[in-house]
């Protein structure tokens, strides 16, 4: 029989970005809050301190900051004809683990979606008609608009401490910013980071071609900064250890650097680590949750934590898993299109070109995760879908974000993978290459979804979640278009050698190479309970005291890294709970 803990007003499942945001905002209401975190406690000191964190093998290759598949993983199949096999060791995506979650080891790219991305079905219908939508594409509008979310994007950027240059201030296009972005009510909290040599070279080329370069919006402090919670960040020294690492010097935006120390000072907030939530418990009427049951690693027992409000703020995959195990939302059935939980799993469609300049010194170890100059000239709101034959777009970025040699050793095509010629090539080419990445949207499809695996179990005896996912022709066509356009830029830069890496039509999903940790959907937002799992406030349609945050809310994935939208939606949810739900708990839509 499970131990029973004292009832709380709010239980938060997962103490990453959105758990920290909801914790802080609801603690300010005076609510008694407990957060449960599956992984370890971790903070800048001692866990990320210099020089120990500067260890490519331990953190970059062996993934010691990540979720370990031995604790939790998924099975993967590309289509229904395949048997799903476990994602046994990390490759394609890297869920976080421990306090701070994926917010500790991200690269810091903090984008807002384009307004059109949140109303994509409408955008398509109004411009080209719905007939261009492929039959199996489950394209929808988000039930919130860019204008609805703008104050919350701003709030998140001020808390997270984002460096950049606005391109659109209240409708006025700004020189040096992104002219194709949605409007901003305020300039970035900090000026843009300095440009490295590669990004400067890219900027000059694309500007001459008539494109519109701007600095990447970075969750990396360019100056010293104090955020609205009183948290302080120090300017980045471009150490080049962002992605997969905790920041050793308080420069990268993370729950640790921007929220948690302030939150821990709130007397009505507490958290427990090594507390893995197994399921959400339901009231007899099935309309509300009563709390959660978790496994306490220290005492090796199940514990019931009662609470009036349950916030599911763990990683997207784990949120969906908990919902499937707990009966939150009807499980999605791709055969009928009915059900909502597990629907519209989406990912990211990326490609790139690498250019080699024998005489140039790029010093690729100088950089940060969100380094670079970008263009949005081929983005979702710039592309003519009718003429191009796909729905979507990509942002492009050039700028070194790590020069760590195990993982970052671009060599000209045709170089052997080992032997004397390989060794010669690494001496010849390390530090003499630069790249342009195209980071593209990914639509949602009937076939790409999440459900429970019939075979494989986790260490608690629960069914693993099963991912059915493959690339789709629409997104591959988008990728091929980016290839054509990026190769034009590569040629214009006149390198000694260059090569591209884009997915060909017919490419199948490969779980081995790292792609992105931008797993989205599965508990999508919707305007009505038939189409998604949560409403516009991220409130479960069928359990009104359960709020579910994160990229699982994405109806289809945008062309950008997800954190800006994740943060904006979390503040939107916090605002709704504070202003609408607490005084009268009920379905808000």
């Amino acid at each position, binding site marked *: 029989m499970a131990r029973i803990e004292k009832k709380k007003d709010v239980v938060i499942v997962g103490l990453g970005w959105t758990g920290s945001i909801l914790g802080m905002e609801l603690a300010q209401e005076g609510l008694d809050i407990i957060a449960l975190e599956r992984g370890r406690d971790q903070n800048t000191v001692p866990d990320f301190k210099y020089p120990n964190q*500067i260890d490519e093998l331990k953190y970059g290759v062996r993934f010691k900051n990540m979720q370990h598949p031995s604790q939790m993983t998924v099975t*993967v199949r590309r289509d229904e004809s395949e048997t799903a096999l476990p994602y046994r060791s990390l490759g394609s995506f890297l869920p976080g683990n421990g306090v701070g979650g994926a917010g500790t080891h991200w690269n810091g790219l903090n984008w807002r979606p384009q307004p059109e991305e949140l109303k994509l079905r409408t955008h398509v219908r109004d411009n080209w008609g719905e007939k261009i939508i492929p039959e199996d594409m489950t394209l929808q509008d988000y039930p919130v608009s860019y204008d609805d979310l703008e104050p919350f994007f701003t709030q998140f950027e001020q808390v997270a401490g984002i460096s950049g240059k606005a391109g659109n201030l209240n409708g006025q296009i700004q020189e040096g910013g992104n002219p194709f972005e949605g409007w901003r009510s305020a300039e970035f909290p900090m000026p843009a980071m300095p440009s490295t040599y590669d990004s400067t070279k890219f900027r000059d080329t694309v500007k001459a071609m008539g494109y519109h370069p701007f600095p990447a919006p970075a969750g990396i402090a360019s100056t010293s900064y104090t955020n609205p919670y009183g948290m302080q960040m120090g300017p980045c020294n471009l150490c080049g250890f962002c992605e997969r690492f905790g920041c050793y010097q308080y420069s990268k935006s993370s729950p640790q650097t921007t929220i948690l120390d302030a939150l821990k000072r709130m007397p009505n907030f507490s958290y427990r680590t090594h507390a893995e939530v197994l399921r959400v418990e339901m009231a007899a009427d099935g309309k509300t949750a009563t709390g959660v049951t978790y496994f306490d690693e220290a005492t090796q027992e199940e514990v019931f934590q009662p609470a009036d409000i349950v916030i599911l703020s763990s990683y997207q995959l784990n949120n969906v898993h908990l919902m499937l195990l707990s009966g939150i939302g009807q499980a999605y059935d791709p055969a009928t299109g009915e059900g909502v939980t597990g629907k519209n799993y989406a990912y990211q469609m990326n490609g790139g070109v690498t250019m080699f300049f024998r005489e140039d010194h790029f010093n690729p170890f100088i950089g940060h995760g969100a380094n670079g100059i970008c263009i949005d000239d081929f983005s979702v709101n710039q592309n003519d879908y009718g003429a191009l034959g796909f729905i979507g777009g990509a942002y492009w970025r050039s700028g070194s974000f790590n020069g760590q*040699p195990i993982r970052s050793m671009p060599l000209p095509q045709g170089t052997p993978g080992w032997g004397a010629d390989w060794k010669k090539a690494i001496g010849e080419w390390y530090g003499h290459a630069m790249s342009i990445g195209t980071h593209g949207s990914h639509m949602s499809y009937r076939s790409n979804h999440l459900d429970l695996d019939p075979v494989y179990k986790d260490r608690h005896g629960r069914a693993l979640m099963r991912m059915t996912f493959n690339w789709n022709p629409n997104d591959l066509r988008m990728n091929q278009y980016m290839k054509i356009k990026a190769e034009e830029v590569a040629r214009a830069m006149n390198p000694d050698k260059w090569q591209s890496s884009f997915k060909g039509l017919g490419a199948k999903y490969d779980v081995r190479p790292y792609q992105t940790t931008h797993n989205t959907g599965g508990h999508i937002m919707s305007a009505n309970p038939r189409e998604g799992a949560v409403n516009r406030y991220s409130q479960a349609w069928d359990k009104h005291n359960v709020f579910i945050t994160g990229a699982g809310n994405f109806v289809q994935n945008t062309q950008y890294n997800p954190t800006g939208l994740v943060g904006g939606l979390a503040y939107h949810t916090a605002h709704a709970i504070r202003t609408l739900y607490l005084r009268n708990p009920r379905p808000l839509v």
Partner: protein
Amino acid sequence: MSDPHGYQNRRNFLKASAAGVALTGVPVALHAKSKEPPVPLDQYKTEYFTADEWAFVLAATARLIPSEGDGPGAIEARVPVFIDRQLAGDYGRADDWYMVGPHDPTAEPARGWQTPLNPAQLYRQAIPAFNAWCEEKYGKSFTVLEAAQQDEALTALQKGEVAMNPELSIFFTTLLANTKEGYFADPIHGGNQGMQSWSYIGFPGARASYKEWVDQHNVKYPLGPVSISGERA
């Protein structure tokens, strides 16, 4: 570039070592500031490998990253020590991985690691299987083949032309990845001796502070590497 380390005939060393002949004083590249010289590879006490396995890994990594030419080879970088320590530790045991069955080792490579073996078991089973193939093809085990034959055998292994149990099909990929890891990882893990690989390519290691260099475009970074434990080269 001539051999910078005073060691003229590594191949003979490897063969001799493999044959169990005691050698002393295998020179390894050491920076003047390194604290004390590491134990020579032929005297190194393995944590995981058997003597035969150790001989194989010395020989195989020496072909994957040979000593000839500019830059250190796997032997100078002490890559075998790195691999031995990795396999003796949590990586070798796949502690972090989901290793629950059923397993389908015949699954196509794009499905990821599907053999039931952990990396340590993989080396243990694959080395004799590969050696058996070498015996059949060349009449000798891999360790004592000529360099050209070793390269040919490794190429066959890489291309999947060596008939092996499907549970072992990921061996070459793993061996090559581990070899490069040991070559480039911080010396704290046992390879990249004296940060030679970092010096060779121009990676400053754990310096990790470049604010004053970011605006110096197209200027080669002038400082040599440092390691986590504070070595400089």
